[in-house]
């Protein structure tokens, strides 16, 4: 069934119900998506000393994953945090790898 111009016509009530379905589905998806990062973070908290947590890539990523799945799916709200996480990880990674790589290069020569 379609209106002139090819636009589909919704039967009465369908829009309301599908919107409710959408909300329920989104909530369910959000809850399911929250489980893995929550589990990962819980596990990191158990095995990693608190003072080391900020230096641990998996912890940073699991916190970030929590943020990503907990926020609305619009990119705009995620962008600054995503970039901050990338910079933080780069700092953590670079702080250990750059001296190691340079030192090794010097030794290899």
């Amino acid at each position, binding site marked *: 069934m379609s209106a002139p111009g090819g636009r589909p016509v919704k039967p009465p009530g369908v829009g309301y119900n599908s919107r409710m379905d959408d909300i329920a589905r989104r909530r369910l998806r959000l809850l399911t998506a929250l489980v893995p990062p929550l589990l990962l973070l819980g596990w990191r908290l158990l095995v*990693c000393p608190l003072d080391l947590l900020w230096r641990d890539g998996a912890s940073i990523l699991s916190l970030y994953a929590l943020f*990503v799945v907990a926020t609305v799916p619009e990119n705009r709200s995620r962008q600054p945090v995503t*970039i901050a996480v*990338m*910079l933080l990880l780069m700092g953590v990674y670079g702080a250990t790898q*750059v001296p190691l790589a340079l030192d090794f290069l010097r030794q290899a020569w």
Partner: protein
Amino acid sequence: MIGLLGMAAANAATLLAANELLRRIRTDVPAVDVVLFLLLRFTLVSALTLLALGTGMFTSAALGLLGAAALAALLAAGAHRRLPRLRLPDVHPLLLVTAALLALRLLLQVWIFAPVIPDVLAYHLPKVGEWVVHGRMTGQIGPDLRANFPAGFELLEAWWCVFLHHDVLIEMAGVEFLALAAAAAYALARWVDLDAKAAAFAALLVTLTPGLHLQATACLNDGAMAALTLSTVVLIVHRVHPGLLLFAVGLALGVKPTFAYVVPGLALLGWMLRKEPRLAPPSLRMVAVVAAAGLLVGGFWYARNLVVHGNPIYPMTPRGITDANGAVTLPSHPGIDHLRQNFEKFAGRRLMDQGAEPSALTAFGSGWGAAAVCCGLAALLAQLRENRRLRLLSIAFVVSMAGVFASVLSDPWFLRFVLFAPALPAIAAARMAAGRRSVRWIASACAGLCFLCTMVPSEMPVGALGDLARQPWRTRVSFPLAGLPDPGRPVAFVDGSRANFYLLYGPGFSRRVAFVRAGTADELRGQLRQESIRDLYSSRNSTAVREAMEAGWVRRSVGLFFEVRPDP
């Protein structure tokens, strides 16, 4: 010079022939066709090498002549006119410059590096030494049990050695597979929804993945396995004919049986995409031929083990693969404990490479590099919700990784088996970088860090790079084996250390190694006389050598080398 000409002719012939075959199985998706072209080239080289080894024609002259004849026939048939026109890809000039710089550095690494990793010297390369020295399969593949593993990768390494009768270009085999990994990453990125420029950046990030890159010039086959895994993923997501999937799977299983561990994830990916339409190839008959070729080339090693040892996956036993002390080094079946331990180690210190120098074997680290870990993982998480294809690939890759983690021990090097996985975060990083300038800067900085981490593998001994660069190429080795006889003098291997075994052959394959089985000194003397050998490589604990020393006709020279005293 003749060797160089033969190498050029044979390589040109295989490339032209691969293109001719590709015309009959092409998908008309250019990125996928490049992957198929490279797979066809590897299959042709592998099949030719196997045939030449089987018929005793594995020599520079025979293969060079065959290559020249095949090239002439292909040129006469006009194959060169059907080659695709080469043109510079439409990417940022800086990316092209970086890619050229990377290619130049790879060639320099191939030229300067020499095999150094203990596993490579102990059991990967001795068979290459045997093949090149004798020009055929001798039945001997080295004293280490692990030399019985499938040797699809070693076929390509032997191909790059046979023409010059030297191992100076042996790392080219790994470089070819690195090119395959880049082509597969490009094709995957295009499938996800990246444009040509972003996909090229993704391919560059994948090429710079430290574990993958360092494997390419270290004569290890895990990088090749990762490239073949990514290629199979490309073929699955593009819904090619199942025959072409069999072709890729056969080839991959012939390179490394651990490919079987990633199959559950690949099968799941195929199942998730089952409703998408398939691409029809131009010739079903050629697909069948190609599939059979892939299965034959890959299956050869399993058939050989079945015939020789009565077990296609020898030295795997119901307990697993064991070392000299009986400890299991690779379990025979997957286990939840392994999965848990390996995942914990991966997500712990390994992922961030904390405390691990960049190494080809990814020792105590992951080898994923800054681009995949720092930029890629966050980018992947951020984009998972907006891109179904990224989600599907993530699910498949996680299942494949779980398959590997459940099947291998938590040793310091287990993450070398999942070097295909960082390709996904690298693609995600390139996708995000395409839309955001700030992410582009971060990804570029990470790529720079990866470039630094892919200069030299940490397996190189202290000062080795300078030593290698100063040595003339004809005699270049990573480290000299103390007491090694002069080139040309054959050596008898009696018993004892298998470490560094490949070094016995010499970089120019100038030394024949005889595998002597002798229980007594008399048996030893008889075999040495028969083979006209005066130098032994053995442990002092060997009964025959000990008796010979006591009898006074053998004396120790240096290290594990002994020499036969001249008859009075």
